[in-house]
């Protein structure tokens, strides 16, 4: 369920490297916890964020959750489909429900992220 080629944060974001750029979204686990997602707020391209800082929010009917920069990053593009149809995150969190494309400002940040196995271990503990 959690692609091996992605990296993950403890805050339930995923990041998929693609050369010097990367795609960022929230995980299947995160969307399940939120429930029906009805609103997404994403930043403008060109904005920079330090690792761990909130760059947007995802809202379900019942709750709002901030989304954090998995690494120091510059926003390159925003998924407008997901802004128009937030339910895409529920339907396909790891692919069509991606949130932003970024430029990784500091490659070393990637080393602190979780592998798929480590992330699955983390959420299995959360569920107990």
């Amino acid at each position, binding site marked *: 369920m959690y692609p091996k080629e992605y990296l993950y944060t403890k805050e*339930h974001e995923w990041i998929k490297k693609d050369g010097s750029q990367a795609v960022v979204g929230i995980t299947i686990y995160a969307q399940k916890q939120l*429930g029906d997602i*009805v609103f997404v707020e994403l930043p403008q391209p060109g904005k920079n964020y330090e690792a761990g800082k909130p760059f947007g*929010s995802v809202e379900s009917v019942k709750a709002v959750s901030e989304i954090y920069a998995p690494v120091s990053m510059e926003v390159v593009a925003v998924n407008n489909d997901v802004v128009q149809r937030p339910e895409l995150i529920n339907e396909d969190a790891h692919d069509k429900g991606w949130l932003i494309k970024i430029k990784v400002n500091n490659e070393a940040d990637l080393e602190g992220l979780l592998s798929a196995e480590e992330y699955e271990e983390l959420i299995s503990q959360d569920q107990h």
Partner: protein
Amino acid sequence: MTVEASSDELKRTPLHAVHTAAGAKMVPYAGWHMPIEYTGVVSEHVAVRTSAGLFDVSHMGEIEVTGPDALALVQRVTTNNAAKLALNQAQYSALIYPEGTFVDDLLVYRFAENHFFLCVNASNAEKDYEYIRSHARGNVEVRNTSDQYAQIALQGPRAISILQKMTAFDLQSVKYYWFRRLDLAGEQVIAARTGYTGEDGFEIFSKPAKAASLWNRIREIGGDHVTLAGLGARDTLRLEAKMVLYGNDIDQTTTVLEADLEWIIKWDKGDFIGRSALWNQKENGLDRKLAGFEILDRGIARHGYDAFIEDKKVGAVTSGTYAPYLKKAIGLLYLPDEYAAVDQEFEIDVRGKRLKARVVPTPFYRRKK
């Protein structure tokens, strides 16, 4: 994100195992371990508006007042006129402090001439019971019978036709806010044509031991027309219908008049607790009033978010959500009287960003009859 852990100390309804078997997401609510959703708030909400939704509301409290002085006690502690209730009739009312503020909101059912049955909020049941008992005078008995009842609600345009298949009693003959004791799928229940969703339907009180078989029978008979619905949908449905929620929109600091519920105050019924405070407030004018709003920008305002007109804080959201049937963000808040008129625009601080909002007529949603 945080995940709330379930606690062994939480109370369980007789349907707890049925919910977990159905894959419900369970959460702590008012001391109970309750289903917040089964398949998703949006689909459950829409199912109630368009077909039928099945709710477990067994966490609600029940208090019974009996004896020759039962009516006098109910009249003293509530704002509506219980003397007007016929047998088998129910009314929405407020349990009231001397200041005119809410101990709770509740439904008052008249079981018999000298027997009133009060359905109260789960989190308030014990407090309500103590409060009512403290005002008992003469020959009257007050009992907290919450453990003796399970409560199931079937709500939505198909609710009556589904339940009709389970009883010989003509359910259409039970008018809105009336109830009957009847046989439903072989079980003796109290079936009340009441609800908390803005839809037609019944709330069914049964013995706890019979709740699971009734629940399963309704699912069997209703088939695809019945959707299991959790507390998440119950909250969005009640807000679209502008039904206030104790602890959010009303509490011991808000008066019945401020909550825009003067229709449940019967000034001419004789004296009752809180009457003079409420009458004073009516005479002198309200400082603030509960108003419904919709968000004009994109975003959702939630409980506790502050509202502004220019740089003046004018109130805070008491309930706010995305309304799944209306497909917009709505909410309730107390506004100073001079700003509470329909079309008044204001701003809500949504996590550091000011969103435009506007006072709108309520209820936000009204079912077609």
